[in-house]
């Protein structure tokens, strides 16, 4: 039995919400330093097995905690997230330690600046405990593509935590932090949250600044939180949301604080359930959890609306053109010249050899595959057939969601058709890509999505979490989070 087991995970969890925990720290009823030391002890004891972290910033976290406690003692307010212990996906830059993207290419990279999300969290009193593992450059759905070794699922260490933000999901699920940040290009927050049994929230494109997030697919990427509950995720989101002069794609739409609002139930909620999301491809336990949630939602007074999203299936093809195309362009910057891995040259090698050798040595197989794929679909003769057509499909997918949201307020379905799978279970790249069927269209349309735990599967005696996903129209985060909090409670009963 490889499981750390669910009860030990649950026992670490504080019964208090993150807002209550921070209120205690702000009022001096609880010490940030004591909290940090407790998390560091958990990490020291169990992260050898889980490998959620690429790097633990023990000294910096202790110093930050001491500063918070001193601020409270001096009678000043350290901020709304005072003492919140947060782990950061290792593709978000910060001055402490390295930012590696779990790639050999950036193994020694130290950022000279902080991402905007880091600045905002720091200013609110959050404490950063370390950098979490990911599929190299956020490309993957299992965190097996890390150059530094895979992360293991805390529920069963013979299984993957999902990806690409597998380390951030596992860190929350294992009780190594209060919350974490991930990035979501095609499901990389929501799918690992589902497989690890925590909450993972991808905001509307443009809600959260991407400044300091290492670029993968720039029209798809969005930073968001992992947390133990929808309310905790909302509190972190409230801190990082908003316009940033350093990211011209951040939206002007105002966001009112949501953490205090998520507990308010919605009285007239229409939940759309697409026929395509009740697919035969769903694992039986996934299908059962979805049907149970639908019954629970009805009991809460929500109206269930059967809807159609026939383009669900074309999403994978669309995504695996657009994302690699953007990645092939974004990753062109890793050329061995200004930063990152540089290959040693043989006599007679020229600049072209420096580029191609450095990139072949620095990037792992999946990253190289996606660069090749993206280059191919953008190349002369294939651009119209692949890239242009994918952009047309993108508009059709967005319009399909627009129509669906005239019939319902939120769309409910599984986050992933499968539960956490064993290591090596999806060796063929295409079979791994197909797992993203319910998450990629959210990014293609730029709308928000959240995954929360809907129930559990019993896989030969091992209890594994099953995630459910809600999606909402662009900028309708308040509806999304309030609906998610309602269903989260209903599914837990």
């Amino acid at each position, binding site marked *: 039995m490889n499981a750390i087991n669910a009860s030990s995970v649950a026992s670490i969890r504080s019964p208090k919400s993150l807002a209550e925990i921070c209120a205690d720290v702000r009022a001096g009823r609880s010490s940030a330093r004591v909290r940090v030391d407790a998390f560091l002890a958990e990490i020291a004891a169990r992260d050898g097995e889980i490998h959620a972290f690429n790097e633990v910033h023990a000294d910096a976290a202790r110093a930050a905690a001491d500063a918070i406690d001193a601020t409270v003692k001096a009678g000043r307010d350290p901020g709304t997230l005072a003492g919140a212990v947060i782990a950061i996906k290792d593709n978000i830059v910060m001055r402490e330690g390295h930012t590696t993207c779990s790639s050999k290419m950036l193994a020694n990279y130290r950022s000279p600046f902080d991402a905007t999300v880091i600045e905002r969290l720091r200013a609110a009193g959050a404490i950063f405990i370390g950098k979490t593992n990911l599929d190299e450059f956020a490309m993957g759905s299992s965190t097996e593509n890390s150059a530094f070794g895979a992360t293991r699922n805390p529920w069963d260490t013979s299984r993957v935590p999902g990806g690409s933000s597998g380390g951030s999901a596992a860190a929350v699920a294992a009780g190594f932090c209060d919350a974490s940040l991930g990035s979501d290009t095609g499901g990389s927050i929501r799918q690992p949250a589902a497989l690890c049994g925590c909450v993972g929230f991808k905001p509307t494109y443009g809600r959260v600044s991407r400044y300091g997030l290492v670029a993968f697919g720039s029209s798809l990427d969005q930073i968001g939180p992992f947390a133990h509950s929808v309310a905790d995720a909302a509190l972190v989101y409230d801190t990082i949301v908003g316009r940033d002069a350093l990211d*011209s794609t951040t939206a002007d739409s105002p966001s009112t604080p949501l953490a205090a609002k998520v507990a308010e139930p919605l009285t007239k909620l229409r939940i759309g359930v697409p026929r395509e999301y009740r697919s035969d491809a769903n694992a039986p336990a996934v299908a059962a959890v979805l049907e149970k949630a639908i019954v629970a939602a009805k009991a809460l007074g929500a109206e269930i609306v059967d809807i159609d999203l026939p383009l669900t299936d*074309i999403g994978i093809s669309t995504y695996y053109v657009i994302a690699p195309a953007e990645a092939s362009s974004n990753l062109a910057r890793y050329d061995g010249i200004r930063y990152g891995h540089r290959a040693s040259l043989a006599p007679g090698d020229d600049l072209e050899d420096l580029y191609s050798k450095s990139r072949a040595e620095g990037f792992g197989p999946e990253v190289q595959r996606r660069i090749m794929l993206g*280059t191919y679909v953008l190349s002369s003769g294939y651009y119209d057939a692949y890239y242009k*057509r994918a952009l*047309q499909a993108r508009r059709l997918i967005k319009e399909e969601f627009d129509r669906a949201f005239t019939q319902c307020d939120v769309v409910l379905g599984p986050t992933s058709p499968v539960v956490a799978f064993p290591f090596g279970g999806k060796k063929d790249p295409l079979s791994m890509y197909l797992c993203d069927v319910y998450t990629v269209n959210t990014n293609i349309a730029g709308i928000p999505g959240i995954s929360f735990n809907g129930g559990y599967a019993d896989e030969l005696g091992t209890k594994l979490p099953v995630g459910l996903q809600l999606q909402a129209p662009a900028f309708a985060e308040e509806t999304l989070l309030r609906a998610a909090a309602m269903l989260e409670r209903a599914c837990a009963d």
Partner: protein
Amino acid sequence: MSEALSDADIRHVAKLSRLRVEDSQVSAMRTQLTSILGHISKLQALPTEGVEPMAHPMRIVNRLGEDEPKPCMPVEEFLKNAPAVVDRFLAVPKVLGEGGGA
């Protein structure tokens, strides 16, 4: 459009991608990319006549910042991550001259 890729296609795309590919890798790459492109080719069956391509989820208009000079990152900070430095410059292999690839 879902025809199989050839070894020459793989070498060409690798060259465009600035990725050195060993001969031993070509065949596996060809198989994997052909399989992925086969799936992606579903797009060809989608009726898209007259649909305007959508490159971005937001209606983006150019956004201009205030034209205020601000200090930039010190060169020393920038060079800390550089793989090879000569004085205050990034060092690169010879670009011009005998044996050069330029």
